[in-house]
């Protein structure tokens, strides 16, 4: 044993041969399990493909040129029939969105930046309660409570603000107008928009907020400078998702609206444009033969419209995720 210990001569580092990737042993259990997981995923893809295919197949008869034996179209072309419905769908959803957006953003701001921290969770839960109410209950409430409540206000609006084109015309005696339907829809989409906006507002980098405050900004100026610009994409996509929800909502509108197939911008009359879903729900029980195909074709158009709106919303979210400073 030598007392002098010398460092062993350093061997030139031999690059270790890249180890062959260790393959896990394939067990039958693994195969079955991963296979069924993949299968479940593929079922979803198949179902969606089936939705599109079956809707298309079943709606083809509606596009026939000769529609004289179609009891819904009565000889008209399909597009003349569907145009007022598409207009009604978009119109009522846009009004609902116009009402809901400022309120939802206000609530989200209140919960995320204004309310005391301890209260915020409870307040959020209260708003979520609104989302848990089934749409048929909203319909009952809208038709039996809200419409009679709003009717005198409509009369007043018509008398005093009738010169505004939207408020003109003969006021509905029941209050069951497109404006009431839009308000009910707004109440229904507020929780969705609020939830998304709240999440986005809470993701604002704390440093941005503190920097603004440290420079002497008031709370509103901080929100304006730090929170809102950061959350712009999120707010837009929240609005789009809410729009998608409003476009497809059936029951509340069916039960609140007194429908007719017109294109009209008047908000307070009893001849209201009918949205596609409400029209399907109302006409489906009596429909037969090619009439059913016509309704399915309108459903297909609704599907395409909501798909486009939702895809746009997702695209905005995805774009934001790539470029935002948070990630």
């Amino acid at each position, binding site marked *: 044993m030598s007392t002098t210990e010398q460092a062993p001569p350093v061997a030139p580092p031999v690059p270790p041969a890249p180890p062959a990737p260790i393959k*896990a042993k394939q067990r039958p259990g*693994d195969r*079955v399990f*991963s296979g*069924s*997981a*993949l299968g*479940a*995923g593929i*079922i*979803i*893809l198949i179902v*969606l493909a*089936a*939705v599109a295919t*079956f809707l298309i197949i079943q709606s083809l008869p509606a596009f026939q040129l000769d529609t004289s034996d179609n009891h819904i179209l009565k000889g008209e072309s399909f597009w003349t029939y569907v145009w007022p419905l598409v207009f009604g769908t978009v119109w009522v959803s846009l009004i609902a969105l116009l009402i809901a957006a400022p*309120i*939802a953003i*206000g*609530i989200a701001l*209140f919960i995320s930046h*204004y*309310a005391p921290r301890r209260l915020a969770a409870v*307040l959020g839960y209260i708003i979520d309660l*609104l989302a*848990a*109410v*089934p*749409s*048929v*209950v909203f*319909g*009952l*409430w809208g*038709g039996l409570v*809200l419409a009679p409540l709003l009717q005198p206000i409509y009369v007043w609006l018509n008398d005093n603000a009738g010169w505004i084109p939207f408020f003109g015309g003969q006021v509905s005696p029941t209050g069951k107008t497109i404006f009431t339907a839009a308000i009910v829809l707004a109440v229904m989409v507020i929780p969705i928009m609020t939830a998304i906006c709240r999440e986005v507002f809470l993701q604002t980098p704390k440093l941005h907020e503190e920097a603004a405050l440290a420079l002497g900004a*008031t*709370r*509103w*100026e901080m929100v304006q400078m730090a929170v809102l610009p950061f959350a712009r994409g999120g707010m837009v996509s929240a609005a789009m998702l809410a729009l998608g929800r409003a*476009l*497809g909502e*059936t*029951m509340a509108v*069916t*039960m609140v609206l007194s429908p007719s197939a017109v294109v009209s911008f008047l908000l307070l009359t009893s001849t209201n444009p009918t949205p596609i*879903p409400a029209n*399907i*729900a109302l006409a489906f*029980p009596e429909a037969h*033969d090619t009439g*059913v195909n016509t309704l*399915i074709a309108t*459903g*297909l158009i*609704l599907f395409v419209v*909501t*798909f486009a709106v*939702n895809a746009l919303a*997702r695209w905005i979210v995805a774009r934001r995720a790539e470029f935002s400073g948070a990630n």
Partner: protein
Amino acid sequence: MTVLTAPAPAAVLTSGKLPKWAPWALLAGSFLVAFAVFGVAAIGGDLADFNIAGAAVVGILLYMVLVTVISSIAESRRKAVDRLMTALVATAFLIALLPLISLLWTVVANGIQRFDAEFFSFSMRNVVGEGGGIVHAIWGTILITLTAAVISVPIGLMTSIYLVEYGRGRIAKAITFFVDVMTGIPSIVAGLFIYAVFALVIGPGISMGIMGALALAVLMTPVVVRGSEELLRIVPNELREAAYALGVPKWLTILKVVLPTSIAGIMTSVMLSISRVIGETAPLLLTAGFTMSLNTNIFSGQMMTLPVFAYGQYMNQGTTPDAALDRAWASALTLILIVMVLNLLARLIAKWFAPKTSGR
């Protein structure tokens, strides 16, 4: 409201500042004034009766004007804008509370009138006018929703396992995208789809319970996928690695480690998705149909459900509209109670069985 107050170092450097109690006093004051004015008007006979909503609206508007004006005089224009926006934001929240309170109040007040033994022990068979109950609708709702859950929970859960544990590449991306698309399917389109399938396969004009269940499953599956995917993702990777290091096969790791860790959350998300679809009306209207008598066979014959029952009683009130509306309100109350109980259960499960985690 006064987070930004710094201890004033020198009087010259600070602008004027309203005391902490000032906004609250202003708020109380403007409400007092508004209510007094409306009260006087009611007594004087200008109004039919005392208008609480009107008084509240006027009170809030008065407060906004006052606080802005006073603050811009005593403090600065910037502070005034800040106070105005605070008032607006808080008002937005209160506005959202109004429909919730009004809705819950009317549903409870109107629904309680028919909330009796007869309502829960009879169907509508041979009932004309008053009386009748919702036994058939309750059975229909339970059977159809359970069937929908039995179909969609395994598919949804396995899909989320695929996405989290196995999914790489194009298929996983496609599934993620199309699950998103599926979340956005309007409920009535799901009903039309199932109707179209059965019309092609069996023949048009058919409706039965299983069709409703399938339509609900189409709506429910993406919700289950989204929910459980999120929960599987937060299972710490260390747990999986520890299991792999002990030589446990992947499928057993998922079954015995990953799923038990997240089972509470998954049950919660399943409950929430059930409470989401249990109130769906439109697809059931098109697929499960409409009947007055009890039917417990989901494979034959039309089936009534609670939401469709409420809808039907409202739309076709018949010769005794009051009785029909009472039934509609009572079934709405039943529905809301079921949804609330499911929500509550979901939250309790999440609380009781939540795995202990560190940090947030």
